[in-house]
């Protein structure tokens, strides 16, 4: 029983961290219509930024700042935001699939940089040695994981409330206006380029927060954590949950991550012994089938966006 609880706490922590990243993508894609194909670059910038700022000195690589944890985590978000600003300023004039290709390229370049620049982040062997905050007080076991889950949940709720208010505000309406028809928004005197950049940087900073939490939870990050598959996973979570709906984004994360890990567990437990070696491949087929099925039969996601008529429109 205690094992089950311990596992669920662990699962919920990873799912909550991923949910924060999915919320960031939802701001970009769901609300503003920015096709970010390089989620993992901003997630990675947050992860690497946090660990570089928070770790003790490691031989032959940048680091040794040992900032207090909240500062390191904020630093990771700032790193992600800066990267997003630079990338956004260059690429946000692009639309749709062109933007997707450009941002995907940025993510691959980011992974390559981290893999090769040993002086910066340890190259392929990654960054280790990070001391998880309050570890001395809470130990390494179940209690720590529980406390960390509490911390991550608080941040998830904070990000959720922030985004709900943001998309409910006039600025949120502006985002949707740009998503639906940029020329119409411009004709009303809005500046789409600037608004798109703000949404892109904000969403990316949120992904950076998720990356920072992820790296501090494992106390380790390496280029293997920032492979393109993560971008795919986060997109799958948003599409299944329902783009444009923050609650959908969170539910989609829990469902997809649950299916991703649960299918592995179920196959290892129930598949016949001769098939055990092939469960990894079967799992990929199952995950792919779920996503294809969703796209075919419920493309708007499990929790579709709820478009509300604005208040002024209702009163008139």
């Amino acid at each position, binding site marked *: 029983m205690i094992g089950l609880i311990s596992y669920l706490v662990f699962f919920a922590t990873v799912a909550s961290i991923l949910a924060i990243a999915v919320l960031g993508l939802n701001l970009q894609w769901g609300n503003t219509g920015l096709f970010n194909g390089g989620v993992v670059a901003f997630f990675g910038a947050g992860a690497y930024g946090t660990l570089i700022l928070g770790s003790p000195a490691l031989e032959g690589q940048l680091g040794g700042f040992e900032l207090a944890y909240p500062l390191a985590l904020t630093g990771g978000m700032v790193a992600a935001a800066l990267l997003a600003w630079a990338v956004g300023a260059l690429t946000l004039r692009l639309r749709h699939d062109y933007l997707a290709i450009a941002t995907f390229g940025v993510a691959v370049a980011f992974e390559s940089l981290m893999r090769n620049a040993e002086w910066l982040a340890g190259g392929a*062997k990654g960054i280790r040695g990070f001391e998880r905050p309050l570890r001395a007080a809470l130990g390494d076991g179940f209690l720590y994981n529980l406390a960390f889950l509490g911390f991550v949940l608080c941040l998830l709720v904070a990000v959720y409330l922030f985004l709900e208010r943001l998309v409910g505000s006039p600025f949120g309406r502006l985002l949707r206006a740009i998503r639906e028809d940029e020329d119409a928004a411009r004709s009303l005197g809005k500046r789409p380029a600037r608004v798109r950049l703000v949404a892109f940087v904000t969403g990316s900073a949120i992904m950076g927060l998720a990356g920072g939490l992820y790296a501090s939870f494992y106390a380790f990050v390496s280029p*293997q954590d920032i492979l393109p598959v993560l971008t795919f996973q986060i997109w799958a979570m948003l599409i299944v949950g329902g783009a444009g709906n923050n609650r959908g984004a969170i539910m989609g994360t829990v469902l997809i991550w649950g299916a991703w890990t649960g299918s592995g567990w179920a196959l290892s437990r129930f598949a016949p012994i001769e098939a055990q070696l092939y469960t990894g491949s079967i799992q990929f087929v199952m995950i792919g089938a779920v996503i294809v099925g969703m796209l075919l039969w419920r493309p708007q996601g499990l929790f579709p966006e709820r478009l509300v008529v604005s208040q002024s429109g209702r009163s008139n």
Partner: protein
Amino acid sequence: MPVTTKTRAGLTLGLALGLGALAPAAVAQDCTTKIGAVLPTSVDWGRPIAEVAQFAVDQVNEAGGAAGCKIEMVLRDTQVDPKVGVDAAKALVDLEGVKLLLGAVSSGVSMPILTSVTVPAGVPQFSCCSSSTAFTKLAEEGKTNGLWFRTFATTAVQSAVAAKVARDKGYKTVAVLYKNDDWGQDMARLIAADFAAVGVEVVANVAINDAQPSYRAEVTEALAAQPEALYLALYPVEGTSAVREWISLGGTQNMIVANSLKSDEFRDNVGLQYLGNTLGTDTASPRSDSADAFRTRYVERFGSEPNGPGLANSYDATMIALLAMEAAGPDASGADIAAAVPRVTDPAGTRVSADAAGFAAAKEVLAGGGTVMYDGGTGNVRFDANGDVSAPAVVWSFAEGGIDEVEYLSLDDVNGFIASLR
């Protein structure tokens, strides 16, 4: 009425006696201990590594299981994704209650499993193939709690033996092409230090990224330094392309290659006529009859030589883990199992072979309070304080029928030579 009571009592007594007599047999037969394995089974080269681990478990069960129970290996796929691997490991430890964990293959997956699952839970982790030097540093800092073991000896041993080859051949300058991952980067760094220690200059050190259509730029860069010889720490696919371009551009055929290129595929695709001056390095089994057991049994079971990467290492990791479990006895904790590892890899112990008969023999010795030395597929594995292993080594060359052995270095030779470099 009294009669009935007496009869009932007699029946109960008889039943209890009967059960008592059955009990020892029942323990050995019916109980099952689960062990966990997190390996990349959805990747082509990962599946055989898992297969050979299961093969080791089957042999242990043939010998009656370990610590009084049959062993069941619960296998989970990592997808070479750290998140997925860590989650799988956590599920195995928490939900299945495994007391030891095999895996993972990639260092980038093994490391977060070690720091966030196995060390906090006190479960020993045996990896076949994680090569990063970061594990040694982590162990030196005392953060693995003695729970980390890996049977992958080849990084330090191979780089040292390659330095010996270069020195013996009299090469003065060498260019290095290495695979751009944690293994390749470690190899490149170690080889530069080891070559320098024997007075060979590394004039070019070039990273090779996977799956590029051409390596002309990299090869040209290495060629521009005009080295007398080329060192390759690559895998067969990239190695073949790089060497083809190297030779077609007029590069030297004096080559030293790591064990990752010990493959028929590489030899056939490059062409044996270009590989006459190529020497390879590898770790080796010790020269004893029992050490052939792994190879023989493997051929019996799978119908081919165990030539893929990590196969012997995976087998040894599994066997040593189960021997340690046997030595620690029933209901041992993870820490007890880790603490029992020296009892099964004791150089002064009774030698046991790498098969079911060897495991059965080891059970007898361990039951009598003795220690054993396991002669595995990668040699008589012996862990140092950081969970790292050293092993005997061979220098080999390509030949018509496969691989020819050029020189054999015993464990003492290897350790002596490595010590002379430091």
